[in-house]
């Protein structure tokens, strides 16, 4: 599991996640995500390269995202594969954090 970030226009931080978000994957990204939770204003979580998400992995996404939202920021999930999207939808998370499959509308939703 790897995590990297990129600053985009409009104070958007794009987070690239790559790998399996199982328990180990969740541990690998937790601290970085926590830092982002305290600093990012608009967060685009790029999940295109996440092949699997477990329950702890879901938590690693949702808890920081909620923290950003509580601070008045916004979060969007971008490009989950079907397995990952299924987990997101089974937990109703898509009702709290919007999911996009195209970049343009995802960025628009953050503005």
């Amino acid at each position, binding site marked *: 599991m790897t995590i990297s*970030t*990129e*600053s985009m226009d409009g104070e958007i931080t794009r987070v690239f996640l790559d790998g399996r978000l*199982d*328990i180990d994957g969740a541990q690998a990204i*937790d*601290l*970085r995500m*926590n*830092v982002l939770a*305290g*600093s*990012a*204003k608009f967060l685009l979580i790029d999940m295109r390269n996440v*092949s*699997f998400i*477990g*329950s*702890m992995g*879901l*938590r690693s996404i*949702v*808890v920081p995202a*909620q*923290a*950003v939202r*509580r*601070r*008045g*920021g916004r979060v969007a999930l971008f490009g989950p594969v079907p*397995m990952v999207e299924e987990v997101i*939808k*089974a*937990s*109703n*998370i*898509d*009702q*709290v954090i919007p999911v996009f499959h195209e970049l343009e509308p995802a960025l628009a939703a953050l503005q």
Partner: protein
Amino acid sequence: MRSLTASTAIPKATAVLQFCHTAYMSGVQAHIEVAFPQRPRQVIPISELPFFIGRGSENGNHLALDDLRVSRRSIVISAVPEGFRIADRGQAGGLFVNCDPVTTGRILHDGDQIRLGGDDECLLVFRAPVKSQQHENSFISLYSTNAASQAGDSHRELNRLSLLLEATSLLHSQLPLEAIFASMLDHAIAITRADRGMLLEPDAAGALHVKVARGRESKPLQPEAMNPSRTVIRQAVEHRVAVINEDLLQADTSVQTAESVVLQLLRSAVVIPLYHLQHGSAAANTDPAAGGELLGVVYLDSKRASAFSSLDRQILDALGAQAASILDNARLMQRERERQRLEQELSIARQIQQAMVPQGITDFPHLDITAIYRPCHEVGGDYFDLFQLPDGSTAILIADVAGKGLGAALLTTMLRGALSGLTSGSEPVKVFEHLNRFLCERPVVGRYATMFFGLLAPDGTLEYVRAGHPSPLLLRRGAVTELYHDGSFPIGLVEEASYTSTRMQMEPDDTLLLFTDGVTEAEDKKRNLFEVERLIDTLTRHAYCSLNAIQAEVLGALEQFTQGANQSDDITMLLVRYRTASPPCSQSL
């Protein structure tokens, strides 16, 4: 936070030169800094005039440089009415001051860079004597810089500090906290040109203690031996703002007579209180006076008066913000490590918890039941329970707690306790909502759970509440369907979650298969998932078998699918077949 790429290119050579300012002894002496990149940095006072510099002390050099690029008789500094004058004594390749060749001699000014010969690395820096200055008003809340160049240097250092911040956020689990703090202080000393720096942290009672102390040039100092000016610190903490106390000897009486100030001949101090970043709004840097919990204090002092006179407010604010972030991150890291350690030590608790799962219950009047709980070593937190309510209905619960170890085990135990309240007639939806709030208000628990809870009445009415749990499968007359297809919020993940109760009618011989995702997410060696489709398929093919037989078939299908790949999650399955409350006539006859 700055992006990683933005702050990588700090010119190495400039970084080496910025740091030093020394006049410990008298506060008046001029000195030479040896700034060869490959040598330890040295600060040599110009103790005698003329002052000779060259290779080897045997040639009468006051400053002997053991480097073949330096000539034995290199240069001389002498006193003239205008100040200090430098001249070439025979340095191979010549003498350069600030890149200008010096032939006949030249008056030196503070900060002049002296290059010996043609090699850029043979570099000395001249520091003019520090003159004592009198300040009318010594308690100066911060004023803007009059030395633009130093401001530039400070900003470069801030960039380095923000790099350090990035580094600490990358979870360097091997890096001890003290090393991060020490590095932070080294940067702070470099930015402010202080003599020493300390990080103070509050204890549980709020009293500040020196945690790490550093001198110049990354010299470690004994935290216990430090005696920072408490009076100045108190002023900063009380006003919640960074302060510079420029000449302590001229300060108000309370500071002036403070023991530490007198004993240590402190002349100037900078105190930057660090506050937890506020999470109230996304807008950065709101009113600092409204800031959060005090994380600690960065304290810098100097025996020189007006050592910090050119620091501006912006630099101090930025320094404070960066330092607070580092401290914040470091604490987060410490807590995380502590949590991991606890989980390892106490995973045995989970084994105890597993023993609480009901074993071999079959005697419910209107139900046949078969259950299997196959925990995966160290992972998971599945839980199921069956119990009878006073009105004759049966409660069926299956839950999957995220994560592993003690946390998961404790949470399942807590769920069990909370849900047992259902026997006294509490509404399931209310219990779910209460549990959700309870967990969300305690993020330290760091866990959430998916659950399915059903109440099956003797007449076949099934009322259920779900919380992000995969739908049980209903086997009715040979066909398999899911009870629901849409999602629901798990317990303890999203504060605003709400739950609904759904009612359906079970028919005699209807069978429910409840399971956790350890079944559908079982993996083969290529990491393909078993998926619910395979489960439905297996169930359909064995629809008319006994519950035990169905269970065996599903386990067999799982085994065949995974081909011996390691089980990665707990596997829990619960098969419930509804019969009419009174036993069939054939049995009563």
